[in-house]
């Protein structure tokens, strides 16, 4: 626990009112003192909600091009990436388990989707021009979430995050999108791949609460042409994200 004096310095640093020499000292402290860094993060978390009241303003399109160019030029070469994924997935999983315990197992998927939905409404990112996005939490019969799928029609792709689940040996998982009037295979779920292209028919279709994303159990390498769809292992409704 940081001392009162340290916490005060952290608070004023985050607020931005320190004079240049104090600010430089705070920057240095933040690098070397984990207690101070934690106090800073706490202050950032406490004060950030004030930014909800700031009107979003669309930046010039050229900004993104400049960012991409800088990345291409290697100006921001990725450092070691990948050390944290396990911890994060475990954490997300814990959240999901906690939510799940609050509801009957069979209703869990709906509850989780509901929490996410409220999360959207409660979101501080008020950005009216944000791209349209949908999300589905795919749960098994027991309500255990196996996949989180984000669909962004304008970007012509979907993101698939697995919660550490894998098909049984010599089996594959295949993902489908199910709409009241049609169903489309989206392809095999690949453990190492987290984006999948979106079929043209889905991009232009009316996605709503009646749309589901499901994962079926198939022979290794996928369903034989003409064969019936395998048993459904995970499924979830697509919810629109309120920007």
């Amino acid at each position: 626990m940081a001392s009162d004096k340290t916490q005060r310095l952290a608070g004023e640093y985050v607020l931005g009112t320190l004079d240049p020499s104090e600010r430089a000292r705070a920057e240095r402290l933040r690098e070397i003192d984990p207690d101070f860094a934690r106090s800073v993060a706490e202050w950032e978390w406490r004060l950030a909600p004030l930014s909800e009241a700031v009107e979003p303003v669309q930046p010039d399109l050229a900004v993104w091009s400049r960012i991409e160019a800088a990345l291409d030029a290697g100006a921001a070469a990725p450092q070691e990436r990948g050390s944290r994924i396990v911890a994060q997935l475990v954490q997300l999983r814990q959240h999901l388990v906690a939510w799940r315990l609050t509801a009957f197992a069979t209703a869990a998927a709906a509850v989780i989707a509901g929490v996410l939905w409220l999360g959207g409404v409660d979101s501080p990112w008020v950005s009216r021009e944000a791209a349209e996005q949908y999300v589905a939490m795919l749960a098994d019969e027991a309500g255990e979430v196996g996949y989180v799928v984000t669909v962004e029609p304008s970007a012509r792709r979907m993101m698939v995050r697995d919660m550490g689940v894998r098909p049984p040996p010599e089996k594959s998982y295949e993902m489908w999108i199910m709409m009241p009037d049609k169903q489309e295979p989206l392809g095999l779920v690949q453990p190492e791949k987290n984006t999948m292209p979106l079929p043209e028919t889905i991009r232009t279709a009316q996605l709503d609460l009646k749309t589901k994303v499901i994962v079926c159990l198939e022979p290794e390498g996928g369903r034989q042409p003409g064969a019936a769809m395998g048993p459904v292992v995970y499924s979830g409704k697509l919810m629109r994200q309120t920007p």
Partner: protein
Amino acid sequence: MADQTLNALIDAVAHGDRTAFRSLYNATSAKLFGVALRILKSREMAEDVLQDVYLKVWDAAPDYRPELGTPFSWMVAITRNRAIDVLRKRREVATDDDAHEAENNPDSGPDPFELAAQSRALKSLLGCMERLEPEHRRCLLMAYYYGYTHEEIADRVSKPVGTVKSWIRRGLIRVRDCLDNG
């Protein structure tokens, strides 16, 4: 966008996923640009800051720790920090325009109390800020939204710098105690 989705995006960015980075940019850039623009009052400078912010997000995504803050608080903090650094550098070469602008902008910025849709986090924060003296609260808000120094705030509220300093210090401590103790 829900924090879970943003967490997943930041996680993908941490693994070098450029498509996720684009989604993150699309979902968050207008808000962060608004934050930077408030402080810098120049589109050009705010766009430079925005570029730095996202390069920093790309670099720092592997270090993002959800237990220490939400994606919103993390990214807003990076933006404000960078914008304030740039603002302070600019102040070193302050022009008459800046002084003129100060006279014409006596307000304390957006009024979060007037915001129709407030998150739960904002409601608790405002609940605590409401307990401060109105003048102290106004100083805190001016500092937060515009990145003003103690001197600049003192000018705007016509009080001695020492008074403003102690208001802000006490205000921060009271807000912290109120939020931490409910």
